[in-house]
């Protein structure tokens, strides 16, 4: 019974990209050591999952043993070679890892996993502009790779190149129109870029994110902030100012209501609704001292 629960938890963590490596190592190690025989073919993918988590937790012994099992079962597999490369990367032996990935690519030039690992090596070594260049070349060939687009947007954000990050997020929004998180992140990038049109655009995307998921608190805060900034800007007409003040007031009321509901549900939350409303208005006043670049 326990092992079924453990196996289901591991599958949930695997499918939803959780990176709770300490837990995965705990649960996975027990599952492997005690119930290996009863898992059947699931065990290979569990070995892979536990190995990556072990690398995160500096458990090189566990990672090595998982790798050995996988090598024994799948001697010529590119996927296992990639795992061996990841282990070398974790040990900071980047040249050896690069050689391994190059050998995979010689065998199979279309192998996306090896190319992505080479880009990660560049990133780990701090060579972000080369990583960006390689990732751009990769995306020219494999345009549909969502993970890579999101990774590229993160790289651009780290380089403060918000225009290009916005472009990557636009690609993601185009292919995932119902995902509220991409809309919200796009709104945040536009808000960070600053300037009146970007703020209005940000407000619209925050509103879209809220339309897709009315429980997205970050989008609610974003709507409040961008609407207040547009209202405070000197270049807008009176009507636009009035509208934005209305939007900001609505967002503020939604925020304080959400906190109130939460407080009623969990008796021991220390923030009072009044305190939150005050905090929200204080933040607004602080921001009027112009922290964002216009």
């Amino acid at each position, binding site marked *: 019974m326990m092992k079924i*629960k*453990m196996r289901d938890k591991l599958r949930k963590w695997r499918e939803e*990209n*959780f990176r709770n*490596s300490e837990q995965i190592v705990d649960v996975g190690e027990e599952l492997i050591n005690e119930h290996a025989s009863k898992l059947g073919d699931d065990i290979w993918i569990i070995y892979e999952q536990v190995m990556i988590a072990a690398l995160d937790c*500096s458990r090189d012994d566990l990672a090595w043993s998982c790798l050995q099992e996988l090598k024994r079962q799948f001697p010529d597999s590119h996927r296992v070679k990639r795992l061996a490369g990841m282990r070398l*990367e974790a040990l900071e032996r980047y040249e050896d890892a690069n050689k391994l990935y190059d050998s995979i690519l010689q065998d199979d030039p279309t192998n996306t996993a090896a190319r992505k690992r080479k880009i990660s090596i560049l990133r780990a070594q701090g060579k972000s502009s080369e990583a960006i260049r390689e990732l751009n070349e990769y995306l020219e060939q494999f345009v549909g790779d969502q993970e890579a687009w999101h990774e590229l947007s993160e790289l651009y954000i780290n380089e403060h190149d918000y225009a290009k990050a916005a472009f990557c997020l636009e690609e993601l929004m185009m292919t995932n129109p119902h995902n509220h998180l991409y809309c919200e*992140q796009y709104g945040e990038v536009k808000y960070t870029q600053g300037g009146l049109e970007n703020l209005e655009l940000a407000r619209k995307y925050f509103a879209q994110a809220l339309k897709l*998921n009315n429980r997205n608190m970050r989008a609610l805060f974003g709507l409040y902030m961008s609407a207040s900034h547009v209202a405070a800007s000197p270049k807008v007409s009176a009507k636009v100012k009035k509208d934005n003040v209305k939007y900001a007031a609505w967002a503020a009321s939604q925020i304080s209501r959400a906190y109130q509901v939460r407080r009623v549900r969990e008796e021991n939350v220390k923030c009072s609704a009044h305190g939150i409303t005050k905090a929200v208005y204080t933040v607004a006043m602080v921001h009027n001292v112009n922290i964002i670049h216009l």
Partner: protein
Amino acid sequence: MASSFWKGVVGVGLFALAHAAFSAAQHRSYMRLTEKENETLPIDIVLQTLLSFVITCYGIVHISGEFKDMDASSELKNKTFDTLRNHPSFYLFNHRGRVLFRAPEQEPSTPSAQALPSNPLRLRKLENYH
């Protein structure tokens, strides 16, 4: 298990459908032999066909697992950035976890904290925060 009951239902439905088909074919050939080709199919065969079709559909719906919401955005309502920004193919390992979790080589062994009272150690692993 409940699912074997529904599998049985689907089996019965399909068998009844096949049986009705054979009866209809047999009835047709009988009509041709006795040269009464303008008589329609007897009502019990028609009823059997329709009923077994309904039963088969109902059984299949029960076998085929959970229904998903029609609204594409509703199953994303619980997704957070915690999981969205993890790109497994791009995982980096040069983070502080490499140092934080390193086994202490020569530290004096500190008395380990006692396990939490009621919850056995194993269950705690699963329930931490997910």
